[in-house]
């Protein structure tokens, strides 16, 4: 993805560019979506689905956050952030008008356009729906280009489900949307059970499908295994990995997993490249 923003980051890879918080959407108790617009000196950003930015909470620190917006809409930059630490908490607490530092976009993309004519399975767990949202926007917009499209989305509890409005819009657009939660009380009328339990209800042809999987590592492992069991080819499964990323440009060494730099070779990988590595403890 070539863009002026990317060029600026290439020239000064350590320097965050200024962006302004335009809108804050509280998704759940600990998840916030920020809509950003370029500040003075920053340029609009084009990106591919699956790419991430380093978001800098001024004076606090920087964390990698996937872009959760629509890749066709370059007018704003959307990030969905879960409050899990010092920096993400600071980002979640930002108000409209606040300045946030952005470096990016970095990393590999979900190869969604390459699946034209095929069935597409999108499997998300928890906050893992955020990095997949650009894929779903794309699929919904170009629904006719693809065969069956199914979203399998698992979350912890009903009140931790993200993007309720979009889930409905994607259903309307002809995507089979299946949602489940790990835990629920009797008030919840939807599915209960881990994300993998949805696979048996998904309508797709395993031999003519690709899958994009994002969630906690264990969830991705089990989902990939279940999709393989359903007859999908390993090389048509894609996952998005997380490791400690400090620089996002291959300098700092933190995000290595075996031969891979997650920041540059990933975060999106074809499953066969990760399968063996993920099976090794503490790699």
């Amino acid at each position, binding site marked *: 993805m070539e863009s002026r923003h990317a060029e600026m980051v290439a020239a000064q890879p*350590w320097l965050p560019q*200024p962006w302004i918080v335009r809108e804050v959407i509280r998704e759940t108790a600990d998840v916030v979506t920020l809509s950003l617009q370029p500040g003075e*000196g920053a340029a609009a950003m084009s990106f591919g689905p699956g790419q991430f930015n380093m978001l800098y909470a001024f*004076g606090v620190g920087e964390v990698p956050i996937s872009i959760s917006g629509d890749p066709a809409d370059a007018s704003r930059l959307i990030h969905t952030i879960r409050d*899990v630490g010092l920096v993400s908490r600071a980002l979640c607490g930002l108000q409209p008008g606040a300045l946030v530092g952005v470096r990016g976009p970095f990393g590999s993309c979900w190869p969604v356009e390459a699946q034209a004519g095929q069935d597409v399975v999108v499997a998300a767990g928890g906050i893992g729906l955020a990095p997949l949202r650009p894929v779903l926007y794309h699929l919904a917009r170009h629904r006719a280009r693809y065969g069956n499209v199914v979203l399998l989305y698992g979350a912890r509890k009903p009140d931790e489900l993200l993007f309720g409005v979009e889930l409905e819009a994607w259903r309307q657009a002809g995507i089979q949307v299946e949602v489940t939660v790990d835990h629920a009380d009797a008030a919840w009328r939807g599915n209960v059970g881990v994300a993998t339990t949805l696979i048996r209800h998904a309508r797709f042809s395993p031999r003519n499908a690709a899958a994009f999987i994002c969630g906690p590592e264990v969830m991705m492992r089990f989902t990939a295994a279940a999709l393989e069991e359903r007859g999908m080819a390993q090389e048509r499964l894609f996952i998005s990995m997380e490791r400690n990323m400090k620089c996002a440009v*291959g300098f700092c060494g*933190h995000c*290595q997993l075996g031969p891979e730099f997650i920041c540059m070779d990933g975060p999106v990988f074809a499953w066969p490249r990760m399968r063996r590595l993920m099976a090794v*403890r*503490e790699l």
Partner: protein
Amino acid sequence: MPDVPATDARILQADRLDRLFEALIARGYHCVGPTLGEGAIVYDEISGSTDLPRGWTDEQAPGQYRLKKRNDGAYFGYVVGPHSWKKYLFEPQRRLWQLKRAGQRFERTDEPPEPKRYAFIGVRACEIAALRIQDRVFAEGSFVEPGYAKTREQSLVIAVNCTQAAATCFCVAMNTGPEVREGFDLALTEILEPSHHFLIQAGSERGRELLSALPTAPCTAELQQAAKTAVAQASRQTRTMETAGLKELLQKNLESPQWQDIATRCLSCANCTMACPTCFCSSVEDTSDLTGDHAERWQRWDSCFNPDFSYIHGGEVRKTTASRYRQWMTHKLSTWFDQFGSSGCVGCGRCITWCPVGIDLTEEVRKMTQPEGGRA
């Protein structure tokens, strides 16, 4: 020195070594090189031959380093110390930027440091190999680290051929030395017998220009031979490493019990990674002032031996020393090939010398290659 045309080899008398410093300083270079400090031979800013560790050598073994007096006046009669040149190109700590939050923009309030023009004096063959390896990390990948690239580009490498090897050296096995073959501006060979001279060659245009400014004489066949003999002595190394098939072997042994065995000795102190001339990992730290409107970011050397290194939400990926040592060794000797097309090890032996418990990389590789019971 086989690659350098004989016409290029000149002789500089040892007592005129300061003419080299003068020429470098006149051209605006900051001279850095070996000097005595911290009970070792370290790299620091130097201004002339009197700063060099003349008449000193180093004695090294696993977990051991001792300075010893030589009974001659050799300027470069040591091998390698705890420092490496990376500290000038990739500083142990530096401020990346200082920013002020001003309306809808960031105002840069620091003066971005002007990259220095260094003359690295006394660079060994293995160290040139290490510089080339870090070039691939910082200057030849998808992204370029501007500070590194600029400093590296405008700095001079004044190499010195080794004429002796430490007990910890294994550059012959790693095919990085002991002769300086490429990647230098000037290369010196110190000759003590029959008289104290430097055989000096240029390896670049800048080196040629510099050489022309020095009071040199043509090299005689006798001195040429003396230099050859001196460098040959450095090829006699007690340590070695079997590199054929090592990349694959380590990948097949990710679950080897040997990692646990190493972990019973390894203190996870990170010394090996600090001393290693190719280790490049770093971390950043963000701070702000009390108003919250001024902030800065610092970069510091980090190590895969630090528990926090692999931290992701929920905890560290590599909780055990066994997993951290495995990361270090498999990265250095195996996955480095996948990432940068070469080994990450140059055979300088620093990790062996500076390991407080004397873990010997070559010995651990040997055990991995020929495990007891013979299963490879």
